[in-house]
């Protein structure tokens, strides 16, 4: 009846980890929503700036009539202005930075808040790898969802703004390949940032001794 000396904790199958992660998101519904909204806004902002600037630089693709109308309104000169172009690239840079920092901060905060919980999880027998897996699944989910919605919102807003300025030709101004490229890069950047922002603190907390993690005062 002697118990065995030391056995190894078995890794949980991925499907179980996914279920636990889904449960974690569900019980934190409002907090998750807030974080995801942050990601949506960041990406919407980024996409909006990127697309509206790309539209502005593709103004020469418009038909002659539209260009004449713009010229008469005075808009064309403004769009072609070199100083304005420099300013907008700074704006794009700023948008990138705001998104980066915004997402990283949101994820870092939401995981750091749970340091005590991570310490407790380790007391209950969670492997370090499980802790990291759980946060990875959560952040992939939030990242993909938030980024996708944000990109959609940003695209929509930019195109609607475009229509008010350039009329119905807006839809053809940017070649599809470019749109795909912009969407792809934004999606990648948004999702990777979300994951990085969550994984770094999760990894740190998982590696701590449980006492230290549980001592966190957040």
């Amino acid at each position: 009846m002697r118990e065995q000396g030391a056995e190894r904790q078995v890794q949980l199958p991925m499907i179980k980890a996914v279920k636990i992660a889904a449960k974690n998101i569900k019980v934190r519904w409002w907090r998750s929503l807030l974080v995801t909204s942050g990601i949506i806004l960041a990406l919407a902002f980024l996409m909006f700036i990127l697309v509206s600037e790309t539209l502005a630089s593709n103004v020469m693709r418009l038909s002659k009539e539209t260009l004449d109308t713009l010229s008469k309104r005075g808009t064309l000169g403004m769009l072609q202005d070199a100083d304005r172009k420099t300013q907008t690239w700074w704006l794009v840079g700023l948008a990138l930075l705001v998104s980066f920092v915004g997402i990283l901060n949101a994820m870092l905060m939401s995981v750091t808040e749970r340091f005590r919980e991570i310490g407790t999880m380790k007391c209950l027998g969670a492997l370090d790898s499980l802790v990291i897996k759980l946060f990875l699944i959560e952040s992939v989910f939030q990242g993909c969802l938030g980024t996708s919605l944000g990109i959609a919102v940003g695209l929509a807003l930019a195109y609607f703004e475009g229509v008010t300025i350039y009329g119905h030709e807006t839809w053809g101004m940017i070649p599809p390949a470019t749109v795909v490229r912009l969407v792809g890069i934004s999606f990648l950047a948004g999702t990777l940032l979300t994951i990085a922002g969550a994984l770094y603190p999760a990894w740190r907390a998982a590696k701590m001794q449980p006492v230290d993690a549980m001592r966190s005062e957040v």
Partner: protein
Amino acid sequence: MAEQTAQEIENQELLATHIVRAVKVRRTYYLGDEPLHALAGIDFSVRRGEYVSIMGPSGSGKTTLFNMIGGLDKPNEGQVFIDEVNIAALSSYELAWLRCHKIGYIFQTFNLIPVASALDNVMTPMLFAGMTQADAQEKAAGLLDKVGLGDRLFHKPVQMSGGQQQRVAVARALANDPAILLADEPTGNLDIKTGHRIIELLREINETERVTVVTATHDHKMLSVSDRIAWIRDGLVDRMQNRDELEIEEGRASVID
């Protein structure tokens, strides 16, 4: 001498084994450059099935000792053996198994997941142990019933009193039928009456389930249920007492010398 049955011999053998042993354990913290010797080469052991209380004032090292024997922290020097296995020699997988299956923890601050229901909280270690959702749910409900919270399965910690939260924590600690229950100041955040209830619950578990209970506390209410008391001072065991050496009077405890 009367003959002993094989079972009696085995029982005696089990009682004679030490389920926890700390040997010359040192733990030093550094406050800036100043070393703080929380544990100064302490020796401590607990036999299977015992109810041992580690008592001492704040700063005596009892929580540090608790963390050592629970595998929650590593000593700077010395060894800690759980079931004669040196925990420093364990891989993180083996340590995780230990925490999952052999030890149940109870903390002063309950450490429940505040946003999850009582049932979810108790189920968590079972899921980590690989139980199915259905089995875990059933067992968790049973445990919560046992601690008197059968009607609050779906309540969240925020909807519960301190005593109820601690009872959820006790149920969670018992999730995977551990051999040892470790409680750090279990009554620290509770009023006297609720504290009594929790101590009574621990005593019951010790007696009926034969689970070894080790508590670190400065609550003198724990004295009457403990088999043995280790008084800690300045990181070392000041003295050990067995239950029969104590004379507990209303309001204070004194020692029969």
